[in-house]
């Protein structure tokens, strides 16, 4: 398979690009909800529109009523989301959650609502400041036919808006071990469940969740008891690749805005884009973004093919896209000069989103470490 978009994929990209630029723009969505202090940080109307466009069903198998497409297609939508900083539950609900519940009993209950854009799903894994899935300490003990959950989760993106939370808990082993983990799909109405939302620097919402003797049935289990690591890795790798695509979009959006500015802004009697000091930095940034985009597409294709090298490439893509987006937003603000420091200008919003995306499900250091381990050093 050639490493560029097929004709069908290019068509989806054109559709997504047009849709997101119109309906998902910074003015229409990010600033709109931020300036109103919205408790969800995104618009449910737009989420319904995502469903009408078919976006929410991209990764849902055809047998379950979805489009049965792959990570390349999900990434196409995410790149446009990144370019417009569009706040939506797409990444956590339509990518990570959907990938996680594939083939499980929970899918019958929750996928229809995601397909129609009526519900939001979240994924709760981390418990500390940094991404350490194997450090999961939250307990799940057998209770009757089901399990009783006790513990806390942090940095659960859109956890306060979610109708269902896919949560990683320990049914065996101890913190630091990959064995003994189990995933549960927990209804927000469950007794003993609590969510406290926090607004983050990028105006997105994340929650701290608490579970106090939350009782769930056996059919809330996603995957095998004690063998949750495999499902967890699969859903995380789908999510990480999705974030890489979103960051390529963030980087491209920031670069386009910056290159336009270099052509318009005049100092010393000429456009500042004539200065070689800025030209070379812009060209270096372009080069890094092209490489990040190629690595991300490669990871998506390998995931779609079920290739054994996908895991390595996912981490390469997340690390590369993360570093590249950080370079893009830093260069963006610096090259805009004073105006780049104002809230009125959009370039600073790119910087905030990049920081949050870097932190989610492993930053560039985490994934460089994973590349080293997978490469045997």
């Amino acid at each position: 398979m050639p490493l560029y978009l097929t004709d069908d994929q290019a068509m989806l990209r054109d559709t997504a690009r047009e849709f997101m630029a119109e309906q998902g723009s910074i003015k229409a969505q990010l600033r709109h909800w931020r300036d109103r202090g919205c408790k969800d940080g995104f618009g449910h109307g737009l989420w319904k529109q995502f469903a009408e466009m078919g976006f929410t069903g991209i990764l849902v198998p055809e047998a379950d009523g979805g489009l049965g497409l792959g990570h390349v297609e999900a990434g196409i939508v995410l790149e446009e989301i990144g370019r417009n900083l569009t706040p939506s539950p797409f990444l956590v609900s339509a990518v990570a959650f959907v990938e996680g519940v594939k083939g499980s009993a929970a899918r019958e209950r929750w996928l229809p609502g995601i397909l129609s854009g009526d519900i939001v799903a979240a994924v709760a894994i981390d418990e500390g400041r940094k991404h350490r899935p194997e450090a999961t300490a939250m307990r799940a003990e057998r209770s009757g036919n089901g399990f009783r959950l006790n513990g806390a989760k942090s940095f659960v993106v859109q956890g306060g808006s979610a109708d269902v939370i896919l949560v990683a808990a320990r049914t065996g082993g101890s913190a630091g071990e990959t064995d003994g983990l189990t995933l549960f799909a927990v209804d927000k109405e469950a007794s003993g469940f609590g969510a406290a939302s926090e607004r983050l620097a990028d105006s997105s919402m994340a929650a701290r969740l608490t579970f106090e003797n939350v009782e769930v049935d056996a059919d809330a289990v996603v995957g095998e008891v004690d063998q949750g690591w495999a499902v967890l890795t699969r859903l995380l790798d789908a999510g990480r690749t999705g974030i890489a695509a979103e960051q390529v979009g963030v980087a491209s959006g920031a670069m386009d805005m910056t290159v336009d500015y270099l052509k318009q802004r005049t100092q010393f009697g000429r456009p500042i884009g004539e200065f070689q000091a800025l030209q070379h930095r812009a060209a270096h940034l372009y080069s890094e973004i092209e490489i990040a985009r190629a690595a991300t597409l490669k990871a998506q294709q390998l995931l779609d093919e079920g290739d054994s090298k996908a895991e390595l490439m996912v981490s390469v893509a997340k690390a590369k896209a993360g570093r590249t987006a950080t370079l893009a937003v830093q260069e963006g603000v610096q090259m805009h000069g004073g105006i780049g420091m104002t809230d009125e200008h959009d370039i600073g919003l790119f910087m905030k989103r990049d920081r949050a995306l870097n932190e989610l499900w492993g930053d560039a250091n985490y994934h460089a470490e994973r590349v080293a381990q997978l490469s045997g050093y």
Partner: protein
Amino acid sequence: MADLEAFRSETRAWLEANCPAEMREPMRDESDYCWGGRNPTFKNDAQKRWMDAMAERGWTVPDWPREYGGGGLSPAETKILKQEMARIGARNPLMSFGISMLGPALLKYGNEEQKRRFLPEIARGEIRWCQGYSEPGAGSDLAGLQTSAEDKGDHFLVNGQKVWTSYADKADWIFCLVRTSKESKHGGISFLLFDMASEGVSTKPILLISGSSPFCETFFDDVKVPKDQLVGELNKGWDVAKYLLGHEREMISGMGLSGGSSEALGTALRDLLADEPMLRTDVARFDVDAIAFRAMSERFIDELKAGRAHPAQPSMMKYAGTELNKRRHELVMAAGGASALEWESERSKGGKAAREWLRTKANSIEGGTSEIQLGIVAKRILNLPGT
């Protein structure tokens, strides 16, 4: 598809029968390259047999037309040949600036007589070519070149000096940029071919920091060049030169992947990194960039084949690939420590690590510096205003 499968099995059988065992071992260093030429030096008999066998089928240049000594293969067939060669680890039968640089330019800009005269002998490895581009006063500003070719009626009279001429002391012919008009900077340049054995041509190797001398200074003192050795139109040589540079950049950017190994650098250096956490971090970050760049190379080649690549994309590839290669060798040296500093000892294979490290420093200078490539990307891809 059935035809392609038949082609694959025929090719596989032919390679099995004709590629000598010695030519299936990985090349150890540049001394294993086969360059051909008028007075060729072969490392062993197998090297010559392999070059001749491939040339006989036109497979030293599989995608050139048959009438010019090529194999006349389609892109799909060429890809299969490359895959089948890679499968048995077959070496490149012939390294040649004639193949990688001059040939494509002649196919596009040469007249019929020139194509029939020069291309077949390139394909057969009979003539070794060198490139006369840079001059002492014309490096990054290549179009500022001063070597002149004066019109003397039935011939040009060439005078001047070139520098950084790769293997000029071993080459048989040169493709050379000369000034045929002072009226216009870019519009006064012509593209000439001539024999290095011509009277008035002399060369002087340049000793480099790596201790080797792959480049020469080349001097022209009243060299007579027949007029039918002008490629393209008079004063339009800059177009030919730019086209050829695109091919050179593709070739050099490929060096970012040199060794042909898909192994991560850290895997190769594993034992040396065990007690070096900071270095291990640097290597891991390098591997992220290197594996990502490998994906970029795959994408670039796929886009080139499909005619989708931006015409200035080779500049981006050359920049990124060469900077990466320099970083790789810095890390190899750091991991090797004091052992990697040895310059002559047997256990260091004559200072292999250090010499290769120093060689890579030229990657981002030759064929247009990194700064020149960034300027091209800024102007032609990002459309930034330029002077």
